[in-house]
């Protein structure tokens, strides 16, 4: 049970750290647009131009 004397301050430090992290991310605008980055990552196609035709085909089932 003595471990509590270590674990509880540790958990407090963890909470303080997450509070700071939250403050930083809010101030940084991380929550201003929660949909966009998720969409953007699907859209961004970093493949070279000549292979983009094949990615397109993969995403578009032949009619």
């Amino acid at each position, binding site marked *: *049970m003595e471990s*509590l*004397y270590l674990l*509880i301050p540790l*958990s*407090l430090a963890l*909470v303080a750290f*997450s*509070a700071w992290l*939250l*403050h930083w991310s*809010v*101030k940084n605008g991380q*929550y*201003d*647009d*929660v*949909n*966009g980055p998720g*969409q*953007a990552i*699907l*859209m*961004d*196609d970093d493949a070279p*131009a000549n292979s*983009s*035709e*094949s*990615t*397109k*085909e993969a*995403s*578009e089932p*032949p*009619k």
Partner: protein
Amino acid sequence: MKADIVGKVDNAMTDSPLNLHCYHCGSLVLPQDTYEADLAGVSRKFCCAGCMAIAQTIHGEGLEVFYARRAQSSDKPAAYLALNDIPENLLAYDDPSLLGRYTRQAGDEGLLETTLRLEKIRCAACVWLCEQHLRHIPGVVDVQINYVTQKVKVKFLSEKTSLARLLFEIERIGYEAWPFEPSLSLDKARKERRQLLTRLGVALLGMMQVMMYAWPSYVGEDSIPAEYDLLLGWTSWILTVPVMVYSAGPIFQSAWRSVQGFRQTHMLGMDVPIALALALAFLAGTINLLMGSGQSYFDSITMFVAFILAARYIELLARQDAQSGAEALAKQLPATCERVPDYPASQNIEVVPVVNCNPGEVLRVSPGEVIPADGVLIECESSLDESLLTGESKPIDKKIGDRVYAGTHNILNPLLMRIEAVGQSTRIAGIASLLDQALLAKPLMVSLAEKWAGYFVGFLLMSALLSSAIWLYIDPSKAWTVLVAVLVASCPCALSLAVPTAMAAAQGAVTKLGLLIVRGHVLEGLVKATDLVLDKTGTLTMGEPELTKIVNLRSGYREGDALALAAAMESGQRHPLALSLLRAAELQNITFPVLNHSIINELGKGLSAGPYRLGNAAWTGGLQDAKAGQYGQVHLADEQGLIASFIFLDTPRAGLKDLLVAAKARKIAVHLVSGDDPITVGWWAHEVGIESYQGGCTPEEKYDYIERLQKEGRFVWAIGDGVNDAPLLARADVSIAVGAGAPLASAGADAILTASSLAPLAKTLLLADKTQFIIKENLIWALVYNLVAIPAAMMGWVNPWVAGIGMSASSLAVTLNAWRLRKA
């Protein structure tokens, strides 16, 4: 190998009718006027040079994945996009007076920052395309795009590129953008949002952690040694303090203000009992901790604060999404106009920002454009569509000397006007300010939940004080413990969750139906509504004529022939009836005959081309059928007399029947109030079965109509779409704006109908009933739970783990009950 497969797929598509659609905008391509271009080795067909230019631009930058990802086909672009020159109306944005208004210095010399609002965005792929394309412009340093608000912040070097170039580049890929004047309120809104989010986050972290420390006492109360109990208690206390001070700070502040203002208002806000309960529980918890006996309540406190803030955060987001009247007004009017400085000596025009124009100056307005200022027509008679401003469904013929209003559409001829009022003194700005007034005057609705919560807290405080007084009489040492036990054993969680969870679930379901709720009280208001006030043009009807039948056909002519002839004459016209004829011809796949004569537009009569005349009854010698065709009739004739008559009817909005049936079933009185002429309004009221109606109303009269109903004690629900409906929507107890209508109307409304049908409203009515029922169930459950728990606490029977399990079960029951609404 892959390229081969692609080729085969595309060859297969060439044979299918699918390939007759424009690659970019998806509209039908007529075989004789096809544009073709080779894109990534595949030949694509286009309907116009504009679409081809856009697709080439997109492919040229390697952004063609857009076509695979987009959810909806694009709009047809303007024709000038085929050229690579910035049009004059955009160049005016580089004028110092406008540039200074829309851009600001961003640090280094020559680095400017601007905020643009994107239009015609339909899906995430559109936003992505705009972002990528802007990044490719030389001179653009940084692009930040927000997918939710559809606003872009662009930093650019002023010597390499310009604001006009940015706007043009966005138009070149098929969208529209207009610079946005970032106001102070916008910054304030963002700050408010971020602050509340941080407060909520702190409360959630506190709740999570305190719950963890409280868990041992829930499950093994007797087996914890005293010193560990104390350690856990003080740790919880440390975590509760920031939640009380920082997260719940605004609650205490507003409660204090409400108490201070009690002398004037004689009303206590919702925050007073919340603040009181929080303060008492925290005080009691701290005292118990110091004494080393009794409950600490910190778990309840943090959870309570977290849930309240979560509900408030959701509400704040919805409220901030709504546009302000001023922002909507800016969208309604063009930013630039064509001025004729040397009138009447010369007709030369210069493109200038509207803000730089003064009364007395002469402007030219081309067909298809919006009139930028109020004034008088001085040359070239034309016809204006005033439906958004007045509700009048048919275009108005304007003669020289007639007044024209800012915000209306010129649809016939290029006209010249002399400005009488610009900016804030125009008629449309007047309506916008009436809207803001109306929002202030809107009667506050005391929500059911607040009323119940008020009773509940009153009852709670009374019983706590009473039991404590009784204990003071029996055993003074236990009085304090019982007071606090009663306050906390009562489950504030279930009560605070009862309404927000039901509302959140119902709003989710309603959004799926196609109704976007902006102000929170809509669902509750719908249940109380006694009167429904409908606008006609654009709400009850689509405001678009539809060719219903062709009559008086001369023998020897088929319907198709007459339609083809009429459509050929009307091609290129912007009159609603012309568009309707062309649409009908397109639907029947009619190819237009070639006319040997040029088409002459005779104002007030119709069109003539050689022997053929197409127009009103008196001019063509047709027979006006008084009963048929509320929207209008057009007759086609040649030298030998009438060939055919075309009968038009405004199309009623889909789902109207459902809405009226649902309203009737609930005994809601339906009113039709419109700015259109009284005969047309009367005809429509009769047609759809509405008994009380009023036509020819100005926006002020509409506003008065609602005010009169409200004075009679009626609870008014209004639906509208035009600028002239904006004050009415703002004044009504519950209002819904039709999404495709004027931005100003949406600014005044409580909810926006994003679906084009009215049927979702009928379903929303049912859902509102169900929501109200579930809220009542939840509140009753919370009450019953408390009626059991409070007497037990009064007697001193409740131990912490029982209270803990009871509290969780109670909250869970309420949440699950609310969840049922999502399926609707």
